[in-house]
């Protein structure tokens, strides 16, 4: 009875690990898409009425989802500490904290800190749009990976579990 229980737990554990790896790929796709949507919204708001950065960040934090919401919320707070840290530095630091975007996603975001609030609206919109396109590419690629590797991870988890159960029994 104990052996059967142990084997079931091992099988469930391996299966869970496989499904978890697949879910991580899915959540990265969603995070990249949310961030790309956030930048699209940023460009629209800029076009609408060219708001000052604190107001823009507030609006975006209210309307965005996932990592975009968190990043814009943190940036809004950073704008109250400009005497201690300039916005470009703060953006780099806060963008680097968004682990859910993956290494390439985070790297893609960094240059926006040198553009936001530092030039005319048209240049800022162009900069945001170019990074949005890059994030969309990364999201497409991550989606492709998820389709391909997600099933592999799930299958590996389940079959690894089954293999261990056979070995143990």
């Amino acid at each position, binding site marked *: 009875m104990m052996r059967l229980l142990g084997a079931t737990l091992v099988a469930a554990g391996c299966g869970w690990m496989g499904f978890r790896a697949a879910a991580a790929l899915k959540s990265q796709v969603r995070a990249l898409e949310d961030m790309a949507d956030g930048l699209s919204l940023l460009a629209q708001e800029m076009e609408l009425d060219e708001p*000052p950065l604190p107001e823009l960040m507030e609006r975006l934090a209210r309307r965005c989802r996932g990592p975009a919401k968190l990043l814009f919320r943190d940036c809004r707070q950073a704008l109250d500490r400009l005497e201690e840290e300039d*916005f470009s530095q703060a953006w780099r630091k806060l963008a680097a904290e968004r682990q859910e975007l993956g290494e390439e996603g985070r790297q893609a975001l960094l240059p926006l800190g040198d553009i936001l*609030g530092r030039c*005319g609206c048209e240049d800022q919109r162009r900069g945001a749009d170019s990074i949005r396109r890059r994030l969309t590419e990364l999201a497409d690629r991550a989606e492709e990976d998820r389709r391909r590797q997600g099933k592999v991870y799930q299958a590996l988890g389940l079959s690894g579990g089954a293999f261990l159960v056979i070995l143990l029994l």
Partner: protein
Amino acid sequence: MEQRTNIQAYQQAAGALPPHLRQAALALSDADQARTEEFRLRVGRPMSVVLPEREQELGGPTVEVRDLDQLVEIASKASLHAVLDQVRRGYLTMAGGHRIGLCGTAVLRDGEIHSLRQLSSANVRIARQVRGAAQPVREALCPGGTLVSTLILAPPGLGKTTLLRDLIRMASDGEGCAPQRVSLADERGEVAALYSGCPQLDVGGRTDVVEGCPKAQGLMLLLRAMNPQVLAVDEITAPEDVAALRTAAGCGVKLLATAHGSERADLERRALYRPLLEEGLFQKLVLIRRTGNLRNYMVEELD
């Protein structure tokens, strides 16, 4: 009390400076902080403060280009695009109404200044409101308890804008006279110093402000949109301004305005101002004179 207010204004303005320069600014004695009119930042030189009698270097580190960039970033809340129109005119207003003047290499587009790059120097003019500045002229300008149309005439630097601001506040809040709706065309943002939609200098609770557009257009906008009882404008400088004031007077609106000059004869001599007298747009003329450190106000009838 006044010294404490002045020190607070100084420290608020110093808040826009990069940390190491702010530290040098805050090391100044309280007495000098209360008297300081401006900070001056020039690349390659230590920062200095402008006192009434002289400009004084503060020592400490020399100013670098990135210090000026940081000054603009802090003052604009990292929103250069939102203040670009002001920067094109060479200044920007920060919280508290303090004004930052900028110099650098102009970027031209179609022959007009598009922006400034590679900033070379800046000054931070500390905004200080003198509440009660209009007290000495209040009775003369409010016969029967209501403000009459008034023109303030003085050479630059004698406090025309300060007096105008306090007259607006007084008329708007009904301090010593009947309260009235005042509309202010504040082209350069020197009177009310709007920041995030809020006047940084007290212009009264019944005052509507339009900022950043040419005075004549601003006056007409206010006349059409805000139904003012008093219309105020700082520095009549163009025939269009006079035409707009004429229209407003024709609508029964009281006028408050300032002009450059030393005496009534200046108004009679200059073609720009002559219609103001001939058409009786103003009932009172306030002349400002300086005697030593004191300002004297003289009120004359213009009828």
